[in-house]
């Protein structure tokens, strides 16, 4: 067996252990607890409201703007993380560079804000 697979063997045993443990606990509780089903108890949500429609309904287009803004700002962080780990090395030069980068990002945010993209219409 190669070293690579040997390392993954740990993961395998963890998975087996986790399954066994979960199965054991659920099994014991199934054996021990009393079983008296009523209509109310079998509802999907015990708060008592039946789900209406299916799970694939359309979501509001409003979420969309936020999703897009999130994607952009989330991904831009890709450039900030490597920079942050080596902050001291890059010195003033790096600080100024990152300042410009963040400034441009902020400009985008200000734009979105002024155009009302951040408002829940």
């Amino acid at each position: 067996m190669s070293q690579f697979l040997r390392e993954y063997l740990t993961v395998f045993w963890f998975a087996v252990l986790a399954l066994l443990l979960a199965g054991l606990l659920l099994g014991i509780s199934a054996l021990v607890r009393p079983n008296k089903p009523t209509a109310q108890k079998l509802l999907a949500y015990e708060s008592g409201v039946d789900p209406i429609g299916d799970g694939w309904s359309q979501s509001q287009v409003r979420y969309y703007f936020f999703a897009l803004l999130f994607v952009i700002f989330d991904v831009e962080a890709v450039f900030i993380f490597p920079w942050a780990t080596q902050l001291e090395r890059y010195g003033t030069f790096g600080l100024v560079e990152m300042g410009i980068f963040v400034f441009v990002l902020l400009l985008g945010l200000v734009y979105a804000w002024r155009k009302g993209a951040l408002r829940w219409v």
Partner: protein
Amino acid sequence: MIAVAVTSTWYLVLAAVLFGIGLAGVMIRRNPLIMFMCIELMLNAVNLSFVTLANHLGDIGGQTTVLFVMVVAAAEVVVGLGIIVAILRRRPGATADDLSELKG
């Protein structure tokens, strides 16, 4: 278990297969959203290929490239979804074949 080492080749083959699946998807599927998802799959295959090669060659350049590809892909998602949603709102369920006002 079979004793095999996972080498760079495996990842490169995986990247090629992913790229091929994406390519076939763009050719076959007609829903613009799914076509776009297939293109994203191709881009991710490229990323995998770059990272593997960077690791194999011991050169940081490939990994840097991946960062740029990821950011550009995100920008493309935002622009592309904007255009696709604009079309689908006007014509729900439009496929790439329905977009044929312009031809000749």
